[in-house]
């Protein structure tokens, strides 16, 4: 369990500042807890939780502060990544962040009344939106803050020698992944100002978790990053297992590593396919997407589903590998290698590809860290942060692989880092399959995993056991814990509050796409319109995970 440091709300800002100077300069997440239905443990009704990571990336701290009044000083002056995170807490819990530059709703729509993650808000109470937010006020503030326009005494704006045109990119467009909207002010083809609006795929994951048992949540986690469903499963069950204090078998660990890497390949091929289509290279799409179909076939055979696998369970997984899995996997890897090879032969020495991607959509390492970007997007800036190396789990330290890093942090680096990671993942999968340990895949504990079907049908204990586990869920000890893994898009974490029952009291996802997206407007300002599309594609924003 993570150790939780307490701080008072008045000194919180200075406390985080000192921690920042001590080296905890990477903000993972901000969230709140509403304790109103869990009265035994709390000091106040609301608490705020800040999770920070050390600059060595090896450890993290959880800072908690109880709120007497529903307001606190913002930390956006320390972390720019806190901007959207604080807006989310305001939106979901109604906590005011004083001196925040732009405190307005982010996930829910502008006509929404109330704060849905408060326990008093009924889960099924939907609210209709009648008119889409035009984002004009947001844009005006942005234009003023960047001195693109000046405010005249009469209250109107003057355009400083620029003929601006305003354009909505998305949300309904394939290049905007269907759900991301960026409102831009254009001077010719150049983006002068950009504001992004998200939340079009906010489907209430965190609220839904609060009335499902731990194992029932697994299908919901599939739909966070739906391009690599299994890695979400693993991140969630790993956090729950850490709270339970169980260690899964070596075989289960090895299978999880293998599936994590397979998911990484599965996700990267679709990201790369899409970004190359955005560039106009349609042929690459077929080369990259067809191996994904082969991975789908393999996973359907193993798990029963193509995309949303729900393969993991608390304490293990649904079933062991089937006979002949290894041969099938080898065939799939062969096809992935072929697809990557063909695609690289088309783009590696392609002048158009290099011109379109190099020095486009650049973000510096310093900014990327301050915005709390993670995963391939951060590594493309030259920061070698990879949970698999820095805070290894499931025996990653045993496997030989390299962390692929870029140098500039442009679209080219982000694309090439992903190509490199596919190769490294294949290396890990081969090492896992060479010495896959024997044994069970589930822990033998009646309070965690379901009994064997023979026992359920023939003994009263077995039947009772099955019934209780299914209806009441796995009882997780009281506590608050943050656990994470290196998923495809970077550090994917879950912060879980348990009140000792089979249903989590609160679940918060630390979603890598969310922070990456918050850096996006700044990355595209000053760039060409067509390059903004490429930049978005190369960040691999998955809306399901970003909006949750």
């Amino acid at each position, binding site marked *: 369990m993570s150790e939780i440091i307490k701080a008072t709300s008045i000194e919180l800002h200075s406390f985080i500042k000192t921690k920042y100077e001590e080296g905890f300069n990477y903000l993972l997440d901000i969230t709140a807890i509403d304790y109103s239905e869990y009265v035994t443990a709390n000091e106040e009704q609301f608490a705020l939780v800040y999770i920070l990571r050390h600059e060595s990336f090896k450890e993290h701290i959880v800072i908690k502060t109880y709120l007497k009044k529903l307001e606190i000083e913002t930390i956006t002056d320390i972390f720019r990544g806190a901007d959207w995170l604080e807006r989310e807490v305001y939106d979901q819990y109604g906590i005011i962040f004083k001196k925040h530059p732009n405190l307005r709703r982010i*996930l*829910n*729509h502008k006509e929404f009344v109330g704060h*849905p993650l408060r326990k008093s*808000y*009924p*889960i*099924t*109470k*939907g*609210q*209709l*939106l*009648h*008119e*889409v937010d035009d984002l004009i006020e947001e844009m005006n503030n942005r234009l003023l803050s960047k001195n693109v326009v000046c405010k005249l005494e009469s209250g109107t704006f003057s355009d400083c020698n620029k003929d601006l045109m305003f354009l909505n990119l998305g*949300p*309904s*467009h*394939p290049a905007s992944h*269907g*759900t991301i909207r960026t409102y831009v002010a254009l001077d010719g083809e150049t983006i002068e100002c950009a504001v992004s609006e998200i*939340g*079009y*795929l*906010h*489907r*209430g994951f965190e*609220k*839904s978790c609060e009335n499902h048992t731990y194992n029932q949540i697994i*299908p*919901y986690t599939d*739909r966070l990053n*739906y*391009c690599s469903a299994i890695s979400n499963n693993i991140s969630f069950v790993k956090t729950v297992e850490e709270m339970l204090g169980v260690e899964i078998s070596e075989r289960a660990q090895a299978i999880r590593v293998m599936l994590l890497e397979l998911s990484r390949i599965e996700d990267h091929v*679709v990201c790369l396919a899409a970004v190359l289509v955005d560039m106009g290279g349609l042929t690459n*799409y*077929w080369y990259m*997407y*067809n191996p*994904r*179909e082969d991975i*789908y076939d393999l996973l359907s055979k193993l798990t029963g589903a*193509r*995309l*949303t696998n729900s393969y993991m369970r608390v304490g293990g997984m649904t079933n062991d590998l089937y006979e002949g899995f290894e041969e099938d996997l080898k065939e799939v890897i062969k096809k992935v290698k072929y697809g990557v090879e063909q695609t690289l032969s088309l783009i590696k020495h392609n002048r158009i590809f290099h011109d379109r991607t190099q020095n486009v959509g650049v973000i510096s390492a310093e900014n990327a860290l301050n915005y709390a970007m993670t995963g391939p997007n951060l590594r493309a800036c030259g920061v070698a942060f990879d949970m698999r190396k820095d805070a290894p789990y499931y025996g990653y330290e045993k496997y030989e692989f390299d962390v692929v890093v870029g140098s500039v942090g442009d679209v080219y680096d982000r694309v090439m880092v992903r190509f490199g990671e596919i190769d490294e993942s294949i290396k890990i999968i081969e090492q896992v399959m060479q010495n896959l340990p024997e044994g069970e895949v589930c822990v033998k504990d009646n309070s965690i995993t379901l009994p064997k079907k023979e026992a359920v049908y023939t003994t009263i204990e077995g039947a009772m056991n099955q019934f209780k586990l299914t209806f009441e869920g796995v009882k997780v000890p009281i506590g608050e814990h943050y656990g994470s893994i290196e998923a495809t898009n970077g550090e994917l974490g879950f912060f879980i509050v348990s009140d000792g029952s089979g249903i989590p009291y609160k679940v918060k996802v630390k979603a890598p796409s969310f922070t990456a997206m918050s850096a996006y407007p700044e990355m595209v300002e000053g760039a060409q319109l067509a390059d903004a599309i490429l930049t978005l594609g190369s960040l691999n924003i998955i*809306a*399901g995970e970003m909006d949750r």
Partner: protein
Amino acid sequence: MELNSPSLEVAITTKLDEAIGWARESSLWPMIFGTACCAIEFMSVAASKYDISRFGAEVVRFSPRQADLLIVAGTITYKQAPILKQIYEQMSEPKWVISMGACACSGGFYDNYTTLQGIDEIIPVDLYVGGCPPRPEALIDALLKLQNDLRTNKYNPNRHEGFKGRLDNV
């Protein structure tokens, strides 16, 4: 019948509405309103293994003005709903709607404060495809069913006349 012979003039007799039905069936232009996981499965439908172009509906247009088949693939939230309605209204008649996946059909397992409980609360739907997400074959099946109905002129242009969505009276 010698088609190459210049002296012979060929005439095929048919009913006008059958000719129109045949033309519509063979030239569906889908517009994908893809938001979530189902949109990823739609990518499979378009990719070479399943290949929607075998069925004469591969001209995927992302402009509603150029499309006559709206495929809603993915969860529609209350925040997204007015956009979906606007896109539907921008499509010119005749038009058809396929609702792909559990979320679009009924909200799926997202029975909560933010998810629209089925797109038919906002726009009329002609075909529902279940599944979370549906397999590519299921979507192709829906397409074939629609084409069969178009061929036999099943669709009355006024079929949604009495439809009133939740956003319609404002």
